[in-house]
């Protein structure tokens, strides 16, 4: 039979032993409530995000980029927001793209769904609706990331041989027949290789691709590592985590060096780089950023509470 503890807990002990279910409940509430009441938090985009945005916006219409989409639903919270922001920019600028993955067999389908969603959204908003095979091609999944990435750098078309993709309402066709791949002979024919990644494929690409400039969209946990690559100039732009997505969405709304109530300034770029005011720019970055602040506030509060409790109990003991 269980015995009851005769001595009640002191205030200091209570502070150190908040029940886990209570903490989880508060965390769930704090993470969920701001989703119902969207607020626009002030934001100053960081240089890495500004570079990412500016490089994309400076591409002429009809340019082509290669996208390595190495994420699945397990990192939807960050990677999907990044992919959506990227796709909105590419589709509005009329940039065609080729997608491949070396990370996960599920990644091509996740990318396909996201592209379809944003293409439909742009189409409904009165813009051009991107069509598979005509405006973008999905090469699919490749095992052996090291070998495939070396092949991409040395003989890009070799990875396309034998691959098929689905044009709209048609059976699959050889990807080499797609208009997107016309004129592409080497990876250097792409303006950028953009990675949307949640895995270590970032270093595989960084180590092997030398013929195309690189830009990465990574999860929050990968930001410290990739910041060193950005600082050394190995990456032309970097978008990291929810903050990176929020930066891109801010830039898409306000532009860069554009006069207005929320002017975003950059020392690097003297030109005015417009945004897309009046369009659907707010995505997952705007939706998640306030919740993230609330959750981090709870974490800091919990750390302080625990430490105050420990300090009080030590003082009492002394």
């Amino acid at each position, binding site marked *: 039979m269980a015995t009851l503890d005769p001595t009640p807990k002191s205030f200091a002990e209570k502070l150190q032993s908040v029940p*886990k*279910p209570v903490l*989880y409940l508060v*965390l*769930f509430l704090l*993470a*969920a409530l701001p*989703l*119902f009441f969207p607020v626009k938090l002030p934001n100053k985009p960081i240089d890495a995000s500004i570079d990412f945005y500016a490089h994309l916006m400076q591409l002429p219409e009809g340019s082509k980029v290669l996208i390595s989409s190495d994420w699945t639903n*397990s*990192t*939807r*919270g*960050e990677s*999907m927001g990044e992919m959506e922001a990227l796709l909105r920019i590419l589709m509005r600028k009329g940039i065609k793209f080729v997608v491949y993955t070396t990370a996960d*067999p*599920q990644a*091509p389908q996740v990318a396909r769904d996201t592209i379809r969603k944003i293409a439909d959204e742009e189409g409904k908003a009165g813009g051009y609706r991107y069509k598979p095979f005509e405006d973008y091609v999905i090469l*699919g*999944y*490749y*095992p052996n990331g*090291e*070998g495939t990435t*070396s092949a991409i750098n040395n003989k890009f078309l070799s990875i396309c*041989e*034998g691959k*098929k993709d689905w044009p709209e309402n*048609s059976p*699959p*066709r*050889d990807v080499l*027949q797609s208009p997107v791949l016309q004129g592409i002979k080497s990876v250097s024919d792409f303006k950028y290789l953009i990675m949307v990644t949640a895995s270590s494929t970032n*270093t595989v690409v*960084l*180590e*092997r691709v*030398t013929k195309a400039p690189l830009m990465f969209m990574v*999860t*929050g*946990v990968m*930001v*410290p590592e990739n910041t*060193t*690559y950005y*600082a*050394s*100039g*190995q990456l032309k732009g970097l978008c990291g*985590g*929810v903050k990176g997505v929020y930066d891109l969405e801010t830039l898409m709304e306000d532009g860069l060096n554009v006069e207005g109530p929320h002017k975003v300034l*950059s*020392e690097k770029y003297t030109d005015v780089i417009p945004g897309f005011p009046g369009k659907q720019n707010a995505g997952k970055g705007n*939706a*998640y950023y306030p*919740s*993230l602040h609330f*959750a*981090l506030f709870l*974490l800091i509060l919990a750390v302080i509470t625990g430490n105050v409790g420990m300090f009080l109990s030590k003082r009492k003991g002394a």
Partner: protein
Amino acid sequence: MTYNHDLAVLSVGAIATIGLYTILYRENRFYRFFEHLFLGLASGWALVALWTETLKSLWWDKLVGASASDGNSAAMGYWVYIMLLPIGAMGYMVFSKKHNWMSRIPIGIILGLYSGQQFNAWTNRYIPQMAGTMKSIIPTAGFFKPDPNALNPALGPVKGDLYGSEALNNLIFIFTVLCVLSYFLFSFDVKNKLVKSASLMGRWLLMIGFGAIFGTTVMMRFSLLIDRMFFIWIEFVKQGLFHLK
């Protein structure tokens, strides 16, 4: 897709999400069921993708060739691709006590290919970082960088000039690099007080770095939770059940 189909998909997703979060309360069968369901789905998907996205397109189709159809041109088969089958199959000999030596052949080929890439890989990854570390610490202009938004463009920063504040940043960077490198001087006994102090500082700076990395890790985990909350409350309840925007 119909509304009912979309709602059914959302409902399954919401139930699975709640099922997986019940582990926070305690280990239970509801959680176990969805965990195994997820593992089964992922394995099944990977198995199909292994054939459709890899073996078929990259090996089988090249081996047998294809006739012209649906806009695709005919392709000749290359029977030499059959040579890959025994090499790949040898990998499975690792399960045989008698013939497991054969598995070392494909492993050796993979190791050889990988090792051959490493010199280039290392160079591409680290040499630009070493070059990036060589930063100037001697300013060539005033301390504070002028406002780039100054009304008079002549008052803005001059390209190529290193301002005092930037030089200070570079100095902190180089100091950090040197201190952290000195922490890893394991090959000889360090007695010099200066190097010892730098090493101790290096340890502290590493801890600050690890703290920052841990902070971003926590932030990422929170983002994943927020996304699940968004899925349940906004996508499923608000938009799916109540059709609210």
